[in-house]
């Protein structure tokens, strides 16, 4: 009887998050060696070069935009938002998974997040940087961007605080600032590790400056833990608010197809959906190239896939609800908007997005697919494409055919629309691979706490 209970207990023990056999030393060395080495894998060089080439394309497109104005894009009234806002919403959504992993999963005490939070947070930062490009470039006179902030000025005017577009300025800039600070606080102890391990004098100096004299004192740690917890508590409502505010840009307008109350949760779910897809797209090749399968295990991939499946189902539900509300409202314009989406000029994009976002992820129900990295990688790419199309269809198809038939106009992207969009993918890749090379992509100190040796063994009471 006693034996049976023991066996049952062992079965109920959760599987270890990272592979067995690691010590504090080997964890440190393995993660730090990616940074502190002279050798750079060919994979890194190739990705960096590809990202850099696309970044140059982006700079070209932006230079032309500055010279000629937004007329080089396909935007034309009534479709004034076109690609720019589609890409903005898509990128900022991708960023959300990083904050979810670093903040919400920390509060929920999900230890497995410890080995993927660092690069997911970096992904957030760079995705927000890419997102931020679009509203700026879309302004027409981007050099006057500071007019969006309330500051004492000689023009005697101020921003309209009742407009969701101004809310967006505050939400996105707060999100970028808080994400950066949270990321940096987590980085401090690891910068100290790099400072202590770097052989190169310049590297040691630079890491030393950034580590600010962190020495791992118990006083530091107790405050550091408290700060992480507080920042996680602050970032959790923040991340939910950001995409909510982004969705207000649409819901507050009266355009049919935009004006509905379920947009906030629908947008947040979609954001996390696409964000986890991006996490998988980055994690699967990285762990393979750098041999980090022991730290980013199949369990991490599987858990991320499960989050993707769950949020994907929420998104699928939102699509159904969207059509239902349009029909149930009895509003002729709402019904027409959905009908145009399904059968009109953008029907191809609509049905393709439904396939990508609802049909394809159903494969993730199968454990075999969830535990095959190659399949997961493909599924994630499909989801990223699907989510981009979703943003595109919501924005463009609603604007192109609104109330008055005489004002309808179909949007066609120009090559500069594509160049700017693909260019930000280059910017993202460029920044991300610089990060991989210069900073530890896995949080070293948090992985140390996952090791069984990290537990203090209390002596039995005497």
């Amino acid at each position, binding site marked *: 009887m006693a034996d049976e209970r023991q066996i049952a207990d062992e079965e109920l023990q959760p599987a270890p998050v990272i592979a067995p056999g690691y010590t504090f030393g080997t964890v440190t060395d393995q993660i730090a060696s990616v940074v502190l080495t002279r050798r750079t894998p060919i994979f890194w060089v190739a990705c960096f070069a590809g990202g850099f080439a696309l970044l140059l394309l982006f700079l070209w497109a932006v230079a032309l935009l500055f010279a000629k104005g937004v007329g080089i894009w396909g935007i034309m009234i009534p479709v004034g938002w076109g690609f720019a806002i589609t890409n903005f919403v898509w990128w900022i959504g991708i960023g959300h998974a990083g904050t979810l992993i670093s903040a919400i999963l920390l509060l929920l005490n999900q230890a497995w997040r410890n080995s993927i939070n660092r690069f997911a947070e970096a992904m957030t930062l760079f995705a927000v940087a890419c997102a931020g490009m679009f509203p700026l470039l879309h302004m027409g006179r981007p050099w006057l961007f500071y007019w969006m902030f309330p500051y004492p000025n000689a023009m005697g005017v101020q921003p309209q605080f009742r407009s969701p577009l101004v809310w967006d300025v505050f939400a996105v800039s707060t999100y970028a600032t808080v994400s950066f600070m949270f990321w940096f606080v987590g980085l401090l102890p690891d910068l100290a590790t790099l400072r202590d391990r770097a052989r190169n004098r310049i590297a040691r100096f630079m890491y030393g400056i950034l580590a600010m004299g962190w020495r791992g004192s118990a*006083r530091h740690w107790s405050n550091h833990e408290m700060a992480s917890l507080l920042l996680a508590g602050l970032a959790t409502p923040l991340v939910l608010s950001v995409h909510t505010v982004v969705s207000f840009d649409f819901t507050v307008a009266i355009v049919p197809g935009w004006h509905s109350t379920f947009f906030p949760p629908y947008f947040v779910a979609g954001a996390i959906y696409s964000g986890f897809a991006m996490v998988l797209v980055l994690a699967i090749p990285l762990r393979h190239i750098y041999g980090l399968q022991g730290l980013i295990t199949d369990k991490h991939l599987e858990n991320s896939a499960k989050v993707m499946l769950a949020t994907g189902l929420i998104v699928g539900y939102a699509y159904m609800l969207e059509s239902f509300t349009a029909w149930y409202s009895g509003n002729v314009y709402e019904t027409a908007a959905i009908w145009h989406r399904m059968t009109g000029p953008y029907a191809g994009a609509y049905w393709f997005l439904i396939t990508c976002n609802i049909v394809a992820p159903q494969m993730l129900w199968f454990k075999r697919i969830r535990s095959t990295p190659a399949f997961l990688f493909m599924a994630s790419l499909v989801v990223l494409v699907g989510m981009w199309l979703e943003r595109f269809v919501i924005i463009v198809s609603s604007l192109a055919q609104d109330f008055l038939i005489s004002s309808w106009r179909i949007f066609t992207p120009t090559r500069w629309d594509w160049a700017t969009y693909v260019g930000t993918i280059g910017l993202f890749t460029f920044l991300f691979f610089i990060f991989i090379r210069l900073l530890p992509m896995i949080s070293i100190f948090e992985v140390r706490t996952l090791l069984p*040796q990290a537990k203090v063994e209390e002596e039995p009471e005497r």
Partner: protein
Amino acid sequence: MKAPIYGVMAEFDNPTSLVNAAREARARGYRKLDAYSPFPIEELTEALHLPKSKLPLIVLIGGILGGLTGYLMQYYVTVIYFPINVAGRPLHSWPMYIVITFELTILFAAISAVFGLLAVCGLPMPYHPAFNVPRFALASRNRFFLCIEARDPLFDRKATEEFLESLDAREVSEVAH
């Protein structure tokens, strides 16, 4: 007479020995102690009798200040500085202020959390005597250190060193200033 030192430092292999050593040193009456480890160890807070963190209070104050800033800024702009009359709707339209008030609350609270953390840790600190111990570089890798500082009233160079050596330490070394 040898030059004055910062303290004496013992090196340990694992977190359990460090926590036990810290408890023992407290029991001996040492008060000016610090422990160094490559990752946070919950038990040390209690073993060293560390004071409660001041951060929550700092963050609360930051958050309240941020919320007030956000709300009052919008009130000032929309009601006093730049009122826009839209069909006679009230100028003080507080429901529309909520989003920015919320965002600034979070922003100010997060900024005070980060700068508060640096302040209570005394960072940035370009120099600290602990770094004079060559093996201290391992404190950010896989070793655990306990330092009894010279300003402790019970501190005696020889006796303290002997005490630390009795605690199954790997190595005991003096920390130069």
